[in-house]
């Protein structure tokens, strides 16, 4: 065999596998970029602010240092965008892996219609309680999302042999049913209520209080950390259930953890910002094209890049028309739509199941 002449050194070079050091370097670089983007985007806005004034710190009383207050105000919004972007991109990675479908996104199993239904119920019933993110819409969206995903999971487990297909089918069925209920509620809603709901459905980042940001950080950060813990075994699960079992993976546990935590962080993100599309689809795609399909790398990098992407999209949304703000969902869809088509064209030549 000709391989006899290869020395140990060159063999190791040929055996390119992910190392902890390489992964840590990549995560640190992306985190650095994220911090840089946060500070650049905080200083961009319709109201110019001076960095030196911001560095002076808060004045003695409210209104003493307007620049500082605007800076903090924008910072809250930018961090909210980063959290939502990270959660959606991470959930997208997990669902694409779990369903073995590169076209899956965090909403594919019906979480979006569940959250939308919750919101519409909150708006129509005219509730005024304020918990969680300040409005009953957020709470209802969260509860709606979680209940829907539990329902889909239950039906999916119940329905049949192939976990993947039955989950997708359950998602489609629940989605269709909830959409019908939403249509019904919209048709009886008043026009003012309708406007609030539609605006929410388009996805919209707004500044949250520090306490909300803190809770959301713990939920989303914790969720992504848990998912990172199973990312290695998720690699095997993308080869199919039997393959994964033969590689020693406890598929039921891994699938439950993956599904549960990705649904949870999606629900948190949705309750913060409504339905922002495309982040959970195109960010995992882009990262996979550049770095490959290893989930240990794909998950943390997608989360960081998802945060960066949504901060930039939101900065465009709040500045492009001056004081008039666009919903960020419009920007992600306008940027994301064409990008998605390019990926689709690229993948459809390569991916077996599309043939």
């Amino acid at each position, binding site marked *: 065999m000709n391989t006899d002449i290869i020395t140990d050194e060159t063999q190791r070079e040929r055996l390119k596998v992910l190392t902890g050091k390489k992964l840590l370097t990549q995560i640190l670089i992306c985190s650095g970029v994220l911090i840089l983007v946060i500070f650049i985007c905080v200083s961009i806005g319709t109201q110019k602010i001076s960095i030196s004034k911001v560095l002076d710190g808060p004045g003695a009383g409210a209104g003493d240092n307007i620049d500082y207050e605007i800076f903090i105000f924008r910072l809250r919004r930018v961090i909210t965008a980063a959290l939502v972007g990270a959660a959606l991109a991470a959930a997208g990675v997990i669902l694409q892996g779990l369903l073995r479908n590169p076209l899956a996104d965090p909403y594919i199993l019906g979480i979006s219609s569940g959250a939308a239904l919750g919101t519409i119920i909150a708006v129509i019933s005219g509730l005024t309680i304020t918990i969680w993110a300040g409005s009953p819409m957020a709470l209802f969206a969260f509860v709606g999302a979680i209940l829907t995903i539990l329902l889909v999971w239950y039906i999916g487990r119940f329905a049949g042999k192939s976990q993947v297909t039955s989950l997708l089918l359950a998602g489609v069925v629940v989605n269709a049913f909830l959409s019908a209920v939403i249509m019904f509620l919209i048709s009886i809603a008043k026009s003012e209520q309708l406007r609030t709901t539609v605006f929410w459905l388009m996805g919209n980042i707004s500044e949250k209080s520090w306490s909300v940001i803190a809770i959301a950080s713990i939920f989303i950060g914790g969720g992504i950390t848990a998912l990172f813990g199973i990312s290695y075994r998720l690699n095997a699960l993308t080869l199919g259930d039997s393959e994964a079992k033969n590689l*020693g993976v406890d598929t039921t546990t891994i699938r439950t953890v993956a599904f549960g935590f990705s649904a949870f962080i999606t629900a948190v993100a949705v309750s913060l910002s409504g339905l922002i599309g495309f982040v959970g689809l195109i960010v995992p795609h882009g990262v996979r094209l550049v770095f490959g399909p290893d989930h240990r790398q794909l998950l943390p990098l997608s989360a960081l890049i998802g945060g960066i992407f949504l901060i930039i999209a939101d900065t465009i949304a709040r500045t492009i028309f001056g004081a008039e703000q666009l919903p960020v969902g419009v920007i992600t869809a306008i940027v994301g739509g064409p990008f998605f088509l390019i990926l689709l064209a690229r993948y459809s030549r390569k991916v077996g199941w599309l043939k």
Partner: protein
Amino acid sequence: MKDIIKVQNLTFSYGKRAVLKELSFDVKQGCFLSIAGPNGAGKTTLLNLLSGLLKAETGFVEIDSKSVQNYSARKLARKIAFVRQEFIPVFDYTVAEMVSMARMPYSRSLGFESEADKKLITEALTMTDTIQFACRPLESLSGGERQRVFIARAFAQDTPILLLDEPTSFLDYKHQVGIYDLLKKMQNERQKTILTVTHDINLAAQYADIGLLMAADNSYVYGPTMEVFSRKQIEKFFDAKILTADIGQSKFFMPLGKLAKDAGLIKNQQ
């Protein structure tokens, strides 16, 4: 040598269709077993039962004197490696990434490969002559090359038992023989126990020590290759006319079509 696999009264059915009925056999460590039979005889089902993917209705499978159902997935994956027919994964892993997954039953948490792991992986890639593709995505390989990658992964999994479901069905002659030579080498040098399901009785008869012929009506015959893979048994189990020839130690089988029968080839056989 001890019995590494023990199958006792194994019965399994899909709905009302019985696939296996009262199947019993033992495999000693370091044996090469070839499983053959017509379509629908339950060969792949048997492999799935052996690897714990399916659960028997009655009867049991024991690996190292312990029921497969009592193993955790992780522990069982240290005993049995399974090579299926090659396929293209949805996400394009490289050859090195795919073979590295073999180390999953041995690693905790994020599973970065140790130097020992890398040595095993490199060795498996070298043995299967796939190291030159190590950095290429799996989908860029031919079917035969991909099959060798999955065999490399099974070697890197470092298990005493290898199960292979039609490992050579997409390979050209050179690689068919190459794979069987390699399996034989693993058997002889490392005392691996090897089970292959195959339609190629000629290769099975050349390499296997023991044969298992299964029929669609749940009957079976188990024993030394020479006895199991005889013309009489093959004709009975496959329900086809077969021409046999002895060359050296080995027997060769050729199914006969209508033309050959009409030409009177059968008579020469007696």
